[in-house]
C-alpha cells in the first residue's frame, strides 16, 4: 500500500499493558508521573459491558482549546496561568474551574491527556483530527460521521450526517463520496436551510410533475440506459423531496422543547446546537457535529478560554444529562475535541499558541469507560520545548482516537477498501486505546 505522507504511525507507541507502561515510563525517569495506575484501576470497576453505540456526537472546539484551561489544568505551576482546578466525582481527577457543571459528569467520561500530532496549522490539524489522517495531496479521507454512515444502513428520511454551526472545514465524505458530507446548518433557532418550498404546494407539485414527466424524459432520450445510476440526480431529487415532507424534520426544531430544558443548554447557538443534536440522535441520525469557535487565544488566553467555557460548560453537561434522560447515552458516543491544544508557555501577550504535543480529548457514552484518565502532561515541562514529547506520558497519536472510536462502534477499521484512485485504504491506521474501552 502506498502512503503519501510520513505518518505518525511510524513512531506510534507500542501497545503496552498498564503495568509495563507504568514501569517503562518510570524507567525512563519521568518521576513526575502520578496516579495513572490508580485511575486506570478505577476504570476497571466501571466496566459494565454495554452494547455498541449507534450514533456519534462530536463537540468540535474550533481554533484549538487550551488543555490547561479545560481538562488538564496545572494550577500553581509556571505553566498553569490563572486557572484553578476543581474536584470531580472521580477521586484524583481534577479539571479546570470553568467546567463546574461538566465536572459532575466526569465519572461518565474518559479524558485522554496525551494526544499528539504533527500538525500545528488550523486547517491541516482539523483535517487530521476529523479524519485520523494527515492531509494527503492525492486523496481526501472521510471523517468519522461519513465512515459511520457508509458502514451502517438506515431508513432515515433526513440526512444521517449533520454539521451544526460548521466552521470553515466541516466533516466531509472524502473518497467515500459527497453524499457522505455532513449536511450543514446554522443556529437551530433559525429554520434549516433549503428544506421549505418557495411556492405554494399546488404550484410546487406542478413544477415537480413538469420536471419528472416532461423535461427529464427529454434529456434521458438516447443516453445511457441506466442514466440515473450514473448521475444519481433523480435519486437525490426524490430523497430531497422525501426530506422536505418528513416529520423527522421536527427533530431540528428545538423550540419544541420545554423552556427549562432549553435553558439548561444555555441561550447560545452552540447550546441550541447540542440540544438539536440530542433530538436528531433520537430520530436515528448517525452523526452530529456541533462547532463552538473562538478558542484561538494567541492573546489574553485566560479570559478568551473562559469566555468560551461559559458556553461549553452548560451545553456539554446538559447534553450528557439529556442523553441519560432519554436513555440515549449508551447508544451514543461523544467526542469533545479541537484541532490541537495550546502551549504550556504563556506568551508576552498573555496568550497561548498552537500546541499539538500533548493535548486533551474527551470521550464518553457507549462502550467508553467513565471516570478514566489516560496519559499525563508534565506540570513542569522543560522550558526549551526542544523535545516536547518527553513531557508527555503515554503519548497517543490522533489516529488512535479514531481507532478507539471505530472499535467502540464495531466498525472494522482495518479492512482495506478500494478508493476511487485505486489505492487501498483502511479507515484508521491507529491502535485503539484499550484502557478506555469496555469489553464488547
Amino acid at each position, binding site marked *: 500500500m502506498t502512503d503519501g505522507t*510520513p505518518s505518525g504511525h511510524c513512531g506510534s507507541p507500542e501497545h503496552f499493558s498498564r503495568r509495563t507502561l507504568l514501569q517503562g515510563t518510570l524507567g525512563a525517569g519521568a518521576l513526575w508521573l502520578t496516579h495513572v495506575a490508580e485511575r486506570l484501576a478505577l476504570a476497571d470497576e466501571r466496566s459494565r459491558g454495554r452494547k455498541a453505540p449507534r450514533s456519534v456526537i462530536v463537540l468540535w472546539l474550533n481554533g484549538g482549546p487550551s488543555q490547561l484551561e479545560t481538562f488538564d489544568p496545572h494550577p500553581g505551576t509556571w505553566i498553569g496561568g490563572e486557572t484553578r482546578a476543581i474536584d470531580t466525582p472521580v477521586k484524583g481527577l481534577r479539571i479546570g474551574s470553568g467546567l463546574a457543571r461538566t465536572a459532575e459528569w466526569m465519572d461518565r467520561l474518559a479524558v485522554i491527556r496525551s494526544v499528539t500530532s504533527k500538525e500545528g496549522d488550523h486547517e491541516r490539524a482539523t483535517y487530521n483530527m476529523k479524519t485520523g489522517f494527515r492531509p494527503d495531496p*492525492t486523496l481526501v479521507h472521510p471523517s468519522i460521521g461519513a465512515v459511520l454512515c457508509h458502514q451502517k444502513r438506515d431508513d432515515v428520511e433526513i440526512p444521517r450526517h449533520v454539521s451544526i454551526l460548521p466552521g470553515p472545514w466541516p466533516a466531509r465524505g472524502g473518497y467515500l463520496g459527497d453524499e457522505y458530507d455532513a449536511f450543514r446548518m446554522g443556529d437551530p433557532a433559525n429554520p434549516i436551510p*433549503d428544506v421549505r418550498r418557495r411556492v405554494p404546494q399546488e404550484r410546487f407539485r406542478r413544477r415537480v410533475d413538469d420536471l419528472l414527466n416532461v423535461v427529464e424524459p427529454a*434529456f*434521458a432520450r*438516447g443516453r*445511457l440506459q441506466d442514466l440515473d445510476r450514473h448521475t444519481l*440526480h433523480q435519486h*437525490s431529487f426524490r430523497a430531497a423531496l422525501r426530506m422536505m415532507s418528513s416529520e423527522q424534520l421536527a427533530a431540528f426544531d428545538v423550540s419544541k422543547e420545554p423552556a427549562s430544558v432549553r435553558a439548561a443548554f444555555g441561550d447560545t447557538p452552540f447550546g441550541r446546537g447540542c440540544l438539536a443534536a440530542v433530538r436528531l440522535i433520537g430520530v436515528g441520525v448517525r452523526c452530529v457535529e456541533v462547532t463552538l469557535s473562538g478558542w484561538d487565544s494567541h492573546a489574553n488566553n485566560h479570559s478568551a478560554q473562559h469566555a468560551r467555557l461559559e458556553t461549553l460548560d452548560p451545553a456539554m453537561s446538559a447534553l450528557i444529562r439529556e442523553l441519560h434522560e432519554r436513555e440515549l447515552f449508551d447508544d451514543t458516543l461523544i467526542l469533545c475535541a479541537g484541532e490541537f491544544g495550546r502551549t504550556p508557555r504563556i506568551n508576552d501577550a498573555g496568550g497561548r499558541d498552537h500546541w499539538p504535543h500533548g493535548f486533551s480529548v474527551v470521550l464518553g457514552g457507549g462502550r467508553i469507560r467513565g471516570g478514566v484518565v489516560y496519559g499525563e502532561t508534565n506540570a513542569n515541562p522543560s522550558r526549551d520545548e526542544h523535545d516536547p514529547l518527553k513531557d508527555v506520558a503515554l503519548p497517543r497519536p490522533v489516529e488512535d482516537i479514531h481507532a478507539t472510536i471505530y472499535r467502540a462502534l464495531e466498525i472494522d477499521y482495518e479492512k482495506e477498501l478500494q478508493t476511487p484512485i485505486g489505492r487501498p485504504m483502511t479507515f484508521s491506521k491507529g491502535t485503539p486505546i484499550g484502557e478506555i474501552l469496555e469489553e464488547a
Partner: protein
Amino acid sequence: MWKKKALLAVLAAVGLLTIGANFFNDDRLEEPSVSVVPAWKSTDLRHTVAKLDAAFEEDWKAAGLQPTSRADDLTIARRIALGLMGTIPSLEEIRALEKLPPEQRLPSWLEHVFSDRRYADFIAERLARCYVGTKEGQFILYRRRRFVSWLSDQLAANRPYDSLVRDLVAGNGIWTDEPAVNFITVTLDANEEQQPDPVLLAGATARAFLGMRIDCLQCHDDRLGTVTLGTPEEPREGLQQDFHRLAAFYSETELSLLGVDDEVGRGYRYKFLGEDHDELVPPVVPFGQEWVPKGGTRREQLAGWLTDPRNKPFARAIVNRMWAILFGKPLVEPIDDIPLIGPHPRALEILADDFIEHGYDLRRLITIIVASRPFQLSSTSDAFTITDRHQEHWAAFPLVRLRPEQIAGSIVQACSLTTIDARSHILQQLIAYFQSADFVQRYGDKGEDEFVDRGGTVTQRLLLMNGDLVKEWTEENAIRNASSRIRILCPDPEKAVEVTYLCVLTRRPTPREAAYFTQRISETPKQKRQEVLEDLFWVLINGTEFSWNH
C-alpha cells in the same frame, strides 16, 4: 445579507436608466466583434486535428464501437463556455453566434472566449488548484488570490506555458510583488522555521508538472509497482532516493528579507529508511539527467530540465489536465498519475508532441482539442444504445457533473438576458459574486479533487429547489431577471418558451416540450404568466441536463 440587499437596491436604480437591448428581435443585434481565428484554419493545426481524429477512429474501429454523430453548434458552444469560462452562453451571445455562417461559428466563438477575461480567470483557478491547492494558508507569507490573478494575467497574454512554469519553479522575490513565488511559499510550515519545504515542493512538482505521483517514495522504495522509472528499455522501480534527490533541487530555496531567494551551495540531508545516519543527498532528477542545464541555481536547473523539449512528461501533464478541463475527465486517470513509460493513449502523445513543437501554446492546444471529433460528438444517439464503453473510448461525449462554480455561474447567466462578464455592470458582477460564493460553499466544493467522478447529493438538490440563488434570479424583477423580461418583451407564448430554453439549456425545446409549455402559458391569464415563466425557469434549472455537462 444587508450588503446584498443594498447592492440590489442600487442596481435597480442604475438599471432603470440602462435598460438593455431587446434580444427578441434578431435584427437589432450587433455584429460579433471578433473575426474568425486564423489558427483554427491553419494547415498545420488542421493536420494535427486530422491525426488526432484518425487515432480515435482507429480505436473505435478496433473496439467495435460506432461513435455518435456530431452535436449541434450550440451544444458545443455550451461545452466550450462551461469548460473555459465556467458558465453558459448568454442569449445575447447565442443570437450573435447564430448570425454567423455555420463554418465560422465555433472558431469565432472560441476566439470570443479567449478574448474574454472570464477565460483567463477560470482557467487560472483550475491551474492554481493543481499548483497550490485550495488552502488559503498563512496570509502573511502566502497570497493565494495574488497568485491566481497573476496566473490569470499570464493566460490572458497567452504566455508560453514553459516560461510560466519556469517562473513558478525558479522565481525569486516577495510573494506580493512576484506572485509566482507563492508556489514556493505555500509550503512554509507554520510549525517549523518558516522556510520552504523541499519535500512538499518535490511532491507538488512531480504531480503538477510531470503528472506523476511519487509521494509514496518519500517514505520508502516502491514495492507495489506503482512508480516505474528508468527508460523503456530498462524500467526500474522507484526508490526513496529518487524522491529526495528531486527534493534536493529545492534545498537552496530560502525565505529572506528579499522574499524567496537561493542560498547557493546549501545541501540537502536525509536519513533514508534503514540507515543509521542522515546523508548529503545530491540533486538528481528521476529520469533524463542529461537534460539538466549546467549553470544556474538548483531551481533554475530543475526548471530548465522540466521544460526541456525532450521532457515529454511535462507536456503530457498539461495536455491531460487541459483535456480534463474541457471534457470534465482526463485522458489518463487519475489526472496526475500518468505512467512515465507507456503505453500512453495516442491522443495524449499527438497532443503532447504538437504542444512541444509549437512553443507550449495553451490556446493552440485548446483549439486542437475543441476542433477534434471527440469534443464535437453528441452525448446522445437515436441510432444505438450508448454504453459505458462509448464514454470510455470517447465515442460519445462523456456525461460529467458540473462543478459548483459552473452551476452558480450558469444559474446567474441563465437568468439574465445579457452577458455577465467583465464588461457587465460592476454591481451585477458583485451580486453574482456574493451569491455564488455562498452557493459554492453549500453545493460542496470538491477542492483539489475536482476531476473525480461523483453523483449528485441531496444537499445540491435542496439548494437548487429551494435555495436563495435560484429564487432571487428567477422571481419577478423587471430590470434584471430574464423571467420578467421575457414576459414583458415577448408576449408570444411559443417564442417565450423557446427563449427560456435558449437561456437556460442553450437549446430549443423539443416539439413535445414546446407544445406542452406553450399550451401552459396560453391557457394562463396574462396577469399570472409571470408565475408560469418562473416555474419554467425553475424546472429547467432543476433537471439533470442543467447540472451535467453533456
